[in-house]
Structures are given as C-alpha cells and as structure tokens.
C-alpha cells in the first residue's frame, strides 16, 4: 500500500473540524549538503528527537522550564538508564502503536550497540530533544541554532534526527 499523504490527510482532517486556514508546511528548493569528513566508524554520533523524553519521576515534581518551552532544546546524559525514560509526546498514532519502548523512536541503546559493532566510532555524552512548535520561524531561528550549539558543545561529527 502507498505511503500516507499526511499533508493532504491532515489538511482535510482539520478542515472537516471547521478550521478555515490549513497549515503551510515548510518548503525549500535548495537543500544543504555536507560530506562526511572521515569514516563513519570514526565518527562521534549525536541523536536528536522530538519524543519529548523525560526521566520518570518518583514524586510529582514538575517538569523543568526547558522541557516545557516550545522551541527549546534540552539534553539528557546518554548514560541515563533507558528504563527510567519515557516520552511525553502525544502526537503519534495511538491506535496503531505505543511509545512504551524508547528505542523505537529514541534509539540510544541501538546506537550503543553500533558503537560496539564498530559501525560508528562513539556517541556523544548527551542526546537531545527538540521541542516542536508550529511556528517555522521559531524552529529556524530558535530551535535550530540551539540544536547546533549543543552538537558543537558535544563535538558531534554527525547527527541522527528522529521526528516522532
């Protein structure tokens, strides 16, 4: 079966709900490209997702500002035990799948295994979350530069990005 045409599907879905203006998805004719400077097996890989991942809290402690701010980027130590992580993301197909397995959208363990297999050189000390927003300007002028700063702080050679 053909893949889902989300742009059309989402537009029709919200028009049916009475929204008059449909969302304009970002579009560019030019695409940047940077070649790999060294073998992948020597590269330090970082990971960014929109899973809104957080550490399970034993009490009712509230989430941090950076976890709640649209357009912000926050980071967690890669060494955080996966079983203590969960996703707060609510935009996913809740009828077809679940977010119960972190590695299905935030593959921290899988990437560690690929370090052991010498497919990649190493992973960064942290992985990162991009708090998604509808504003393209916010994502381009705030989120993207913040993500770049974190990648540079971590000396990442390449980045794997996983939108949930």
């Amino acid at each position: 079966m053909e893949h889902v045409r989300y742009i059309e599907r989402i537009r029709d879905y919200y028009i049916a709900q009475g929204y008059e203006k449909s969302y304009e998805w970002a579009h560019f004719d030019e695409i940047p490209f940077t070649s790999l400077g060294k073998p992948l097996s020597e590269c330090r890989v970082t990971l960014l997702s929109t899973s809104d991942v957080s550490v399970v809290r034993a009490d009712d402690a509230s989430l941090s500002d950076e976890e709640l701010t649209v357009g912000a980027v926050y980071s967690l130590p890669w060494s955080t035990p996966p079983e203590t992580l969960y996703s707060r993301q609510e935009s996913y197909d809740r009828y077809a799948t679940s977010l119960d397995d972190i590695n299905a959208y935030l593959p921290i363990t899988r990437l560690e295994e690929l370090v052991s297999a010498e497919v990649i050189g190493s992973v960064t000390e942290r992985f990162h979350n991009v708090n998604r927003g509808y504003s393209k300007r916010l994502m381009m002028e705030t989120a993207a530069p913040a993500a770049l700063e974190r990648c540079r702080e971590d000396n990442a050679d390449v980045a794997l990005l996983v939108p949930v």
Partner: protein
Amino acid sequence: MSLVARHLEANGIPTVVIGTARDIVEHCGVPRFLFVDFPLGSPCGTPFDAEMQRDIVERGLSLFDSATEPGTTSELALTWPNGEGWKETIFTPEQPFLSEEAVKNWEVRKQRYREQQVGSS
C-alpha cells in the same frame, strides 16, 4: 525536525533523518532521509523488536556513506507487523488524532507560549 537537519547541515554537521512522514520531510527537503513506512511514533521500528530497530538505525547511518547528493531518500522494504490498516484510519473522524486530554495539554502549551511571547516582547 527537517528544519533543524537543514540548519545543522548548512553549518557543517552531516545529518540523517529517520522518519515516517515521507511527504512532509521531502516537501521541506533534507540532505539524507531514511523513510520507514510505519505509524507515527515508531520511526525506528516495532516496539521491543531490537533486531529490527538495529537494522533500521544502521541503514539510516549507512546514508552518510552512500548518499552523494542532497535530497537523498532511501526506503526499507518493511511491513508493519499488524497490517496496513492504520494507513486508512490515521487522521480520520473515526479516530481523533489527539485524545481529549492531549488537546487540553496542547491548549495549555499554546497559552504558555503566547505568554512567553508577550513576556519577551
């Protein structure tokens, strides 16, 4: 996330996007994209199928070597284990995408964002 990938790439950090919404990612345009034809929420494979997840992530990473031009999309020959019925029902009135609670949370986030905008202007 595509916008972030473009920004990293333009500033010297090669990127790969692994995602499930092919048309949205390709409409934006990213350097390297591994399309996984699975439901939103499972771009790196079926939950708790570590072997599949590892294959998908490794195939994504292989694009760093194999892609020679921007806008490269690769697709894996995978089928969602429970069939493809989800493709018919995603974003339909029969299956409201967000739960009522999620809609309320979204409204809270939107309000918080607006207050931050006012606060910073």
